[in-house]
């Protein structure tokens, strides 16, 4: 089966004081049609930047994608294509929902306007009336009561959970093949979080949409993802089936993340936290980027960046511990 989205050796550079600094680098992954890929990592590890680069939404005045990077969607390259070509992909082929539903909808335009606008941008032959019918049925699908009334309302009249449902309805209204959900539940309270995840999951099955779920919440990943990719400081450190990651995590960073989830069964007085914090792009170590925080780090880790080492069929870790030659 050929992948829907294939990203290879993605490097994203940001301008800092006239110089371009590499932030995300060597990121390779793929998303198959209809599957859910979870991308996990701490804040600032490049998850959102990676997703924005796929959408072509990186600010072009101070960021760029390096030449060797490839992003292929359905066999088409998305690197260096024109704004016009990208517009035909955004929304129609790849749609995105964002972290904060409170600020992601335009406060001075009605819900209906914002949704109809998107449908008609991709299908200009549709009348306003026909587009409205589509959005009303979409709004009903995402569980919005009195959808006919809601389309004339403004975002501030709705709760956060409702707004995220509207974002989801909007994102799916052009029937995209890939949905990028950038921390879709972070800004919502816990009961709503579960509902939103459930909704994404059921709609994904209904429309056979592939989902890239970006989150820092491992519990979310466990609930909905087929495969998981763990990112740290702009690189992919581990990738595998969800079960591999949860039961047999290999990379010290993934293990650290899993250990820092509080558990109900064990009664422990202190949570294991990973010491230190993610370095800024200028301070990335020349070797393994996790080395300064890693309990197993040796001199080799500081000096040479590790490659991806295969653990099992679909399970990879970027750590010297799993190389043939070992850490030393």
């Amino acid at each position, binding site marked *: 089966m050929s992948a829907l989205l294939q990203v290879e050796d993605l490097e994203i550079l940001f301008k800092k004081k006239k110089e371009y600094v590499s932030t995300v680098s060597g990121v390779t992954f793929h998303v198959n049609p209809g599957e859910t890929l979870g991308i996990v990592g701490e804040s600032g590890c490049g998850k959102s930047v990676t997703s924005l680069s796929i959408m072509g939404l990186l600010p072009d*005045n101070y960021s760029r994608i390096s030449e060797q990077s490839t992003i292929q969607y359905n066999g088409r390259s998305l690197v260096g294509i024109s704004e016009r070509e990208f517009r035909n992909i955004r929304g129609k082929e790849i749609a995105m929902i964002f972290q*904060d539903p409170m600020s*992601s909808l335009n406060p*001075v*335009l009605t819900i209906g306007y914002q949704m109809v606008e*998107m449908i008609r*941008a991709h299908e200009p032959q549709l009348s306003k009336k026909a587009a409205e019918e589509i959005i009303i049925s979409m709004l009903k699908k995402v569980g919005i009561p009195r959808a006919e009334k809601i389309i004339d309302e*403004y975002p501030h009249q709705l709760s956060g959970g409702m707004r995220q449902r509207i974002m989801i309805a*909007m994102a799916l209204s052009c029937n995209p093949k890939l949905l990028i959900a950038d921390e879709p539940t972070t800004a919502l309270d816990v009961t709503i979080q579960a509902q939103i995840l459930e909704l994404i999951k059921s709609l994904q099955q209904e429309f056979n949409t592939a989902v890239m779920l970006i989150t820092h919440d491992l519990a979310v990943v466990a609930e909905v993802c087929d495969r998981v990719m763990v990112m740290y400081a702009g690189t992919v450190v581990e990738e595998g089936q969800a079960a591999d990651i949860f039961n047999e995590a290999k990379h010290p960073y993934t293990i650290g993340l899993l250990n820092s989830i509080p558990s109900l069964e064990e009664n422990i007085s202190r949570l294991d936290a990973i010491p230190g914090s993610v370095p800024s792009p200028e301070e990335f170590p020349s070797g393994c980027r996790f080395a300064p925080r890693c309990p197993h780090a040796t001199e080799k880790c500081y000096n040479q960046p590790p490659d991806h080492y295969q653990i099992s069929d679909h399970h990879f870790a970027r750590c010297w511990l799993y190389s043939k030659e070992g850490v030393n």
Partner: protein
Amino acid sequence: MASYILRRIWGLIPVLIGVTILVFMIMHLSPGDPAKIMLGPKATTESIAKLNAELGLDQPLYVQYFTWISNVLTGDWGRSLQLKMEVLPLVADRFGATLLLTLCSILIATAIGIGSGIISAYRKFSWTDRSLMLFVLVGFCLPVFWLGIILQIVFGLKLQLFPISGMYSPGQTGLMDLFLHLVLPSLALSAGAGAVIARMTRSSMLEVFEQDYIRTARSKGINERRVIYIHALKNAFIPVLTVLGMQIGFLLAGAVLVEMVFAWPGIGTLMVNGILARDFPLVQGVILFVATTYVIVNLIVDILYAILDPRISYQ
């Protein structure tokens, strides 16, 4: 909506009362005796006292105020001491010209200000942005009367493109003639306001461009024009509107100077002459007219807010 507007109009009443008190006080507390000025330097003390009594100027201030205000409310704005004419028709007649000039300037200022503000914000920190903002800064700093004179010299005398004074050429009443006469004074008057609007639009647009909903709009695949003019501008315009309302006040005030330079037959010339002659009723009339206009313009701005921003409730 209707009750919102009614409440806003109700709120205008204390403001307007305050304005009348201020106008009245400023004129009466400033030095200079109108009777003395009217009768000339050789007047006797008795004749001055007699004239003051005739004009009612010998009565206590509050009595004078109440007499004036009750007359104003019944449409009797008094007679100009200097021109010996009814104030209300005089001011109303001249006000049309000022209003025309102000409206033209605000149109020019808004078009240029919002246009350059958007371009600047969209190309932030580029050379286009820098040069536009430099231009705007210069426009803001130029005194209106100086700019007026320079425009007269360049476009009137050297290039002979536009007439430099008055509202109509002698013996003409055509629209085209009026338009040609309007160009230079409106340009001179619009510079400052245009500059303020441009800066406000730029900073407001810059802020809006950073918002999440702009990213959402782009992620929908709609074209950039829609993102800028519908998603961004509709939000960015709200603070610009406030400035716009205030600028209309400054323009009415600035019109006084421009009218003097271009001999535009508006209330500015009327007011300046009135002040020089200590013509109380006339100056009070003009200021009251201008202040009322300003207050009404701001009322309209408030109503527009409620239309533009759905988050403002009418309740």
